[in-house]
């Protein structure tokens, strides 16, 4: 597992992107999906995921839906209209960030 600290600042963007692709997801599903997509490289910790989700919900980016599954309640998160817009912005920011990092870390192989 590589340095998780590097991913920390991108947690919200990761969550938003996942919800944009998967319509609605619950907390545990998000952790598993990230693990699967990154082949275990990134593991979102529980102590970080829920605060991030609650923050996004408070900011009006996420809406919730609660469904009774088997013998328990499951809380699904999905993007609101503002959330969808914010996802596009955040992804653009992320692309820009990656580009800048590329320039800094590996100037020889820069894209431009």
């Amino acid at each position, binding site marked *: 597992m590589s340095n998780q600290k590097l991913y920390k600042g991108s947690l919200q963007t990761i969550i938003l992107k996942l919800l944009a692709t998967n319509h609605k997801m*619950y*907390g*545990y*599903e998000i952790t*598993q999906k990230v693990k699967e997509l990154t082949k275990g490289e990134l593991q979102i*910790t*529980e*102590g*970080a995921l*829920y*605060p*991030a989700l*609650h*923050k996004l*919900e*408070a900011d009006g980016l996420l809406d*919730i*839906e*609660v469904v*009774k*599954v*088997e*013998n*328990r*309640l*499951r*809380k699904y998160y999905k993007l609101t209209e503002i959330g969808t817009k914010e996802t596009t912005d955040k992804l653009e920011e992320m692309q820009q960030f990656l580009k800048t990092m590329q320039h800094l870390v590996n100037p020889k192989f820069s894209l431009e």
Partner: protein
Amino acid sequence: MKLTKNQIDELYKFTRKHYVYHYDVQSELVDHLANDIEKIWEQTPNLSFEDAKNNSFKKFGVFGFMNVIEAKQKQMNKRYKHIMWRFFKEWFTLPKVTTTIVLFLSIFFFLKIQFSEYILLGTLFIFLIFDVINQFKNRKIQKEKKGKTEKVFLLEAMIGNTKGGFTGITALNFFNFVNLSHINFSALEIHWSIIVSLTATLLCILFYVIHYIIPQKAEELLIETYPEYKLVNNL
């Protein structure tokens, strides 16, 4: 292997033991732990429920559920303020704005009366007594509810008890302020009178919204906030 109803109840008790007191926060954590335990059992089917639960809990780190509780509290504070503002605003649109104006003028002219500060102190004192009685009643209701169902939602507790920090204590502070400052309100200059009256009017409305309007609409607000509220309370 799936978790049984009893094991789910165990998980609810477990979250309560780890300082998660509100049903909405508990539910999300219970589902998370349950999913994780089922996943752990896929890999090690012989592990006991207790061990699987503890393994899963460890993943939350040294602070356990604390980060989650804190974030949830912050989110709900924001929501509560939003609700407060929604009802507060109403007092500045027709028809309620007339009440606001009447209230403002009454306070303004009332302050002109000699010894108005003593009448003000008396009013604040009566209000404080009412608030203490109200709080006491509320606590009792919450306690009874807690004993019976143990399903108190975070926003429900905020509407009933903490009230976003605007409880009788705030009124007590005003009482002390008026009492200790020895301001002679009737001798104040006009602009000060206006400022004092305006502040008092706004505070009166705020208290009224928090102590009467929001608790009256509690159920409606809870249904709006929690999609599961109806499901849980069989409404």
